[in-house]
């Protein structure tokens, strides 16, 4: 063939070659892999469904024995008292919220501050050091935090408590207090909030930062007026995860918050949280089938519903307020 193979005669003489477009091999392996991937995705959903299902029958049994009104609206907690038992879960809910509140007062400002620093201010080297350290902190066992609260933070709190404050707030805490557990729990949650918030902020397109700098923004204005609003859905997600961890956290409150079901939001009081109750009570000492036994499941259900509702609310909040940059 010459370089002028485009002559009309050549087209007639050489019809188009046949090309097969059907599958060259059956690709069974792909189907197996896709099936396996589906099972992985389905597994966590199935486990969640399983947990819910296992909670429901004992909870129903509990409410057969104790009227819902007694559970939700009485102010008396003594489920193990055989003579005059009380099942007013409000005291446990308030105890949980008490510790959670102090934990969040620590974790949200510190975590968000750390995230802003890491994402907008830190140089390459300091980020390289700080981020892994932060992530290591996330892996410290909670029992270590609990021991730290009881043996280190509590004595210091008792020592430095601002006793000049008037009224109840001026009373130094005892051996067990919501303040000690809450502070340490807050420290425990900082890495979660910081790490997820920072990921969300780093994902904000650099074009937005450039635009903000180009308009004469300071670094702080770029961070607070452009990057944080643009990353808000991720930041709120980090808060929600922090709250969920605080509500569900067991070891710290078990060791440092005490076991007295006080109806109080004061930080210097001892409180009994829902998780502490479950952990203290499910020790094998109680007989299966007793009302106390079913109380564990009822409290567990309350815990589950609380975290579930909070996730729903936060998803709605994020949908409403996020600034999408796609």
């Amino acid at each position, binding site marked *: 063939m010459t370089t002028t193979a485009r002559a009309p005669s050549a087209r007639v003489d050489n019809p188009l070659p046949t090309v097969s477009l059907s599958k060259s091999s059956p690709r069974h392996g792909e189907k197996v892999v896709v099936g396996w991937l589906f099972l992985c995705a389905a597994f966590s959903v199935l486990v969640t469904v399983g947990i819910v299902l296992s909670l429901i029958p004992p909870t129903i049994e509990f409410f057969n024995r104790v009227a819902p009104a007694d559970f939700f609206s009485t102010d008396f907690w003594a489920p193990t008292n055989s003579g005059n038992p009380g099942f007013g879960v409000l005291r446990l809910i308030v105890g949980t919220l008490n510790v959670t509140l102090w934990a969040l007062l620590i974790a949200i400002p510190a975590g968000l501050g750390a995230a802003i620093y890491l994402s907008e201010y830190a140089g390459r080297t300091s980020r390289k050091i700080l981020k892994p350290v932060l992530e290591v902190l996330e892996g410290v066992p909670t029992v270590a935090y609990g021991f730290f609260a009881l043996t280190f933070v509590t004595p210091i709190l008792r020592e430095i408590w601002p006793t000049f404050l008037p009224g109840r707030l001026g009373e130094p805490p005892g051996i067990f207090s919501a303040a000690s557990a809450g502070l340490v729990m807050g420290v425990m949650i900082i890495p979660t909030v910081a790490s997820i918030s920072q990921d969300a902020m780093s994902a904000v397109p650099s074009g937005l930062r450039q635009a903000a700098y180009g*308009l004469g923004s300071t670094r702080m204005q770029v961070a607070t007026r452009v990057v944080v*609003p643009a990353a808000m859905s991720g930041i709120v997600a980090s808060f929600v995860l922090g709250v969920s961890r605080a509500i569900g956290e067991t070891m710290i409150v078990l060791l440092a918050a005490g076991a007295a079901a006080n109806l109080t939001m004061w930080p210097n009081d001892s409180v009994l949280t829902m998780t502490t109750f479950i952990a203290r009570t499910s020790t094998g000492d109680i007989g299966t089938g007793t009302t106390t036994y079913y109380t564990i499941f009822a409290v567990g259900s309350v815990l589950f519903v609380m975290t579930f509702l909070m996730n729903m609310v936060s998803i709605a909040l994020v949908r409403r307020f996020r*600034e999408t940059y796609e």
Partner: protein
Amino acid sequence: MTEPSVTHPYTPQQELPDHPVPVMQTRSLNVFYGGFHAVHDVDLAFGHHEITALIGPSGCGKSTVLRCLNRMNDLVPSARVEGEVLYHDQDVYAPSVDPIEVRRHIGMVFQKANPFPKSIYDNVAYGPRVTGMKVDSMDDHVERCLRGAALWDEVKDKLKESGYSLSGGQQQRLCIARAIATEPDVILMDEPCSALDPIATAAIEDLMLQLREQYTIVIVTHNMQQAARVSDRTAFFTARPDETTGNRTGLLVEFDKTSTIFENPSDQRTEDYISGRFG
């Protein structure tokens, strides 16, 4: 290639002085990124109420030069600038100068439209708000800026909607409205039309010619016809590879009236580039 027209469709080209009356100037501008010499000895003057186009092949340093003018290169940690960049006869790299203040006077429009994920109104109001600018009525100011960017009629009924609800060309005009909201007197445009279709590009070019009445504009463009259509003066850059490292350093070849650059360039490299023989 057909010879591009160099007459302005908007206003008949006024008598352009032979030398610009500079609002901004660079003197022996050299830029380094770490050990890499990005731009070598650039002397330019940007005339009052003129549009200056910076053209040249990729990697010739034209965007780098543009980003020196309002100190955006400060955001690159390894960047280092030598020489002078004068704005109203003050060196913007002088130690006493606050880069944030510089950027309030020298606005910038970027290659990819980058509106904030906020409402159209808040996009325009952002600059005046962060700079603490005194405006009698923010509503009026936002309207004025949107009119100035030829966008008002298209968005006046949806000021509360996200800037991302607009088309690409509208987003870019929103970015221009946002840039003029801080009342700069110089606007830098870094390939503002490279992501736009021809109709949106024409709208932005019309807008540039209108803005020239009030602002000094510097535009980086890959599109030579665009430079020919809108600019009063053109600076042609090229890249010269270093003999030992092979790193390409950008340098200014020729800077003159746009008509001269396109019709009668004095440097062979300019002529080769303009006529499409390289780049």
